[in-house]
C-alpha cells in the first residue's frame, strides 16, 4: 500500500472506507509488532537494552504518514513504528533489528528504533531528543533546492520541545521557509516528567507564533482528525509556505521504556486514556458505518498475528553479525 493512492483519493476522509481500512491495518500491525517486542521478545531476554513503544499513539504516525508521497522524507521519533511499515519495511526486519541480527536495518550496529534507510527516505533518529528537528530542516532544504514539491515530516515528543535543537531547528526552517511538517506527539510525559514540569505554557502550539508558523492541535487518538490536520499541514508545506506544526494530544500507555512501571502516573489517568484507545475507536466507527463486520476485523488481526509469527521466526534465524564487521563503515573506505 503506498501513500499516493490516498493523495489521489477524492472521497472525503471520513467517508473513505479504503483509507480507514489502511489506517486500521497499519495501526493494528504497529500495535502487534510492538506488543511482540515489549511483552514477549524483551521479557524472554531475546531483546537486550532499551525498548520504547508507541502503544496508544498509533493514530499519529499512521494518520500523518499516510499523507506522505513516496519521495517525502520521514524523521520518526522513537514511538512512530508505523512510519517504517508505511515505507515498506517488513516486520521481520524490525524484529531482526531489535534482536541485533544482520537482518535488521543496521546489521546490529545499532538497536531498537534507531534505524533508517535513505533509499526509503527515512532518516534514523539519534538518542538526543530533537536532534532530528534541524536535520529535517536540512532534508527539506535539499528537497526545495532540487526543485521538487516534496516535503519532510519530523516527529518528536513534548519533552523534546525543551531542547535547544528544537528551537534552533524550527526557527531555521521558518526563516528559510522550508517545507517541513513538524509533528509533536504530546503524550503528556517525558520519561517521569509531566508536561507541567516541562513547559510553563499550556500547549506546544503556543510556541508556534514565536516562529511565525501556523500550528494546530488535534486529538491524537482520532486517526481521522490527525490525518486531516496532516493534509492541511502537508498542503501548506508543499505550497512553499514554510513549516507547519501539528500537536497531537495523546497519552503514553506504557512505561517510558520496557523496564519502567511508570508508578509516577497518577492513578486513573491511564485508565481514562485506555477508553480513548485509537484502534478501538477506529474499529467501532468502522463497524458503525458498516464498512466492515467485526469478524472481518478479527480476521485481520489473525492475519497480522500469523504474519508476525513468521516474521519473528525469520528474524531469529537471522544470524548475529560477525565480530569482523566491528570495524566496517566508520568511513567510506577504511
Amino acid at each position, binding site marked *: 500500500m503506498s501513500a499516493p493512492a490516498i493523495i489521489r483519493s477524492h472521497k472525503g476522509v471520513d467517508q473513505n472506507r479504503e483509507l480507514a481500512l489502511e489506517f486500521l491495518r497499519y495501526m493494528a500491525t504497529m500495535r502487534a509488532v510492538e506488543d511482540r517486542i515489549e511483552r514477549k521478545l524483551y521479557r524472554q531476554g531475546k531483546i*537486550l*537494552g*532499551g525498548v520504547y513503544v508507541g502503544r496508544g499513539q498509533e493514530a499519529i504516525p499512521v494518520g500523518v504518514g499516510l499523507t506522505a508521497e513516496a519521495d517525502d522524507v520521514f524523521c520518526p521519533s522513537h514511538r512512530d513504528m508505523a512510519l517504517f511499515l508505511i515505507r515498506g519495511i517488513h516486520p521481520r526486519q524490525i524484529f531482526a533489528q531489535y534482536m*541485533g*541480527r544482520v537482518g535488521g536495518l*543496521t*546489521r*546490529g*550496529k*545499532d*538497536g*531498537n528504533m*534507531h534505524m533508517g534507510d535513505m533509499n526509503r527516505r527515512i532518516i534514523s533518529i*539519534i*538518542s*538526543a*531528543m*530533537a536532534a532530528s528537528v534541524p536535520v529535517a530542516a536540512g532534508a527539506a532544504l535539499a528537497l526545495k533546492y532540487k526543485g521538487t514539491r516534496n516535503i519532510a515530516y519530523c516527529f518528536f515528543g513534548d*519533552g*523534546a520541545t*525543551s*531542547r*535547544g*535543537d528544537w528551537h534552533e531547528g524550527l526557527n531555521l526552517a521558518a526563516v528559510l521557509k522550508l517545507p517541513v511538517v513538524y509533528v509533536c506527539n504530546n503524550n503528556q510525559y*517525558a*520519561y*517521569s*516528567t509531566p508536561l507541567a*514540569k*516541562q*513547559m510553563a505554557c499550556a500547549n506546544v502550539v503556543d510556541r508556534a507564533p514565536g516562529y511565525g508558523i501556523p500550528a494546530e492541535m488535534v486529538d491524537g487518538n482520532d486517526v481521522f482528525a490527525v490525518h486531516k490536520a496532516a493534509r492541511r499541514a502537508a498542503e501548506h508545506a508543499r505550497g512553499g509556505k514554510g513549516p507547519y506544526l501539528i500537536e497531537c494530544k495523546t497519552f503514553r500507555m506504557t512505561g517510558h521504556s520496557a523496564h519502567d512501571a511508570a508508578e*509516577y502516573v497518577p492513578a486513573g489517568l491511564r485508565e481514562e486514556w485506555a477508553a480513548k484507545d485509537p484502534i478501538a475507536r477506529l474499529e467501532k466507527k468502522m463497524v458503525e458505518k458498516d464498512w466492515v463486520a467485526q469478524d472481518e476485523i478479527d480476521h485481520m488481526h489473525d492475519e497480522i498475528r500469523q504474519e508476525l509469527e513468521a516474521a519473528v521466526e525469520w528474524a531469529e534465524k537471522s544470524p*548475529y*553479525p*560477525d*565480530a569482523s*564487521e*566491528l*570495524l566496517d563503515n*566508520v568511513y567510506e573506505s577504511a
Partner: protein
Amino acid sequence: MQMTYLEAIRKGIQEEMERDPDVFLLGEDIGIYGGAFKVTAGMLEQFGEKRVIDTPISESAIVGAAIGASLMGLRPVAEMQFADFITCGFDQIVNFAAKCRYRWGAAVPMVIRAPSGGGIHGGPFHSQNPEAWFVHTPGLKVVAPSSASDAKGLIKSAIRDNDPVLYFEHKALYRRVKEDVPEGDFTVPIGKAAVVREGRDLSIITYGAMVHVAREAAETLEKEGVSIEIVDLRTLAHLDEDTVLASVRKTSKVLLLHEDTLTGGIGGELAGRISEKVFEYLDGPIVRVTAPDTPVPYSPPLEEAFLPNAAKVAERARWLARY
C-alpha cells in the same frame, strides 16, 4: 559497611547534602523517579523539591543553571541522564564553567555526574566514554571511580571542590561492584591515583571499569609468573603523574588500558608523558589496549569485540612482559 558502587555514590551525595545546605541536585527525572539508574532514589523525600530539582530536557540549561548557582555560592550536583548527552551541554561546560576562574577569578564549584561506559547493550548513544574531551579542557577536573569506596570518597571530594568537576560513574559497575565502604566523613582526594595492585614486571595504568579487567588479567599472568602492578588513575584531568611515573620507573614496562576509543584517548596523553619523562627507564614499547576507533555497536558479538577484556589485556601484557 557493605554497599554497591551505586549505593556508595548515593550515600556520598546524601552525606554532603546533610552536611552542607548549599548542596543541591538538578537533572532529568531525578526526583520522584530517583533518576534513570535510581542513584538519587529517596533524595526528594529526604531533602524536598527545593534541593532535588527535576528539570526539562535541557542539558545546556542544566549545566548553565548549575554554573549560575555555583557562581552565587551554591554547590550544584547536576546529573546527565546518560554521559552520552553531555555533548548537548558541551559549550556551557568547556567555555563557561571551565574558564570563569582563569578569566575573571570567579569560582564555579559544581559537579556534573555522568553515567558512562558500555557492556550494558546500550548501543552507540548509551555506552560512550566521553572523558577525554574534558581531560583536554583546561579548567575542568575529571574523576572516574572504579570501586565503591572511591565512588563515595570522590563524589564527596568533588562536591567540596571549588572547581568544576566531571564525575564519570560507570554504569556496568553500579550493581556489579559491592564492597565495604568506610563510614562517615571519608574522602578520596582529587588528583591522587592509587596503586591497587603491587607488581614487579609490568605496570597497567587504567581507570574505571577497566581496573577490574586489569585485575583479572593480572591474576592470569600471575599464574604464568608475571607480576603486574596496577595503577588506578581515579582522577583523569589534573592527574597524578608522579604515581604513574613512579610505577613505570619501578617496572620499566607499561600497558595503558581504557574502555574509551584509541585515537585521542587518555592512553595517548599518558604515553606522551611517559615517553618524555621516564624514557630511559623503558624496557619495551608502550602498549595501549583500548576500544577500537568506532562508535559503540549494539549487537552482543560486536560490543564484545569492541570492549577491552581480560583476554585481550593478558595477551598484550604477556607479549610485553616477554619483550
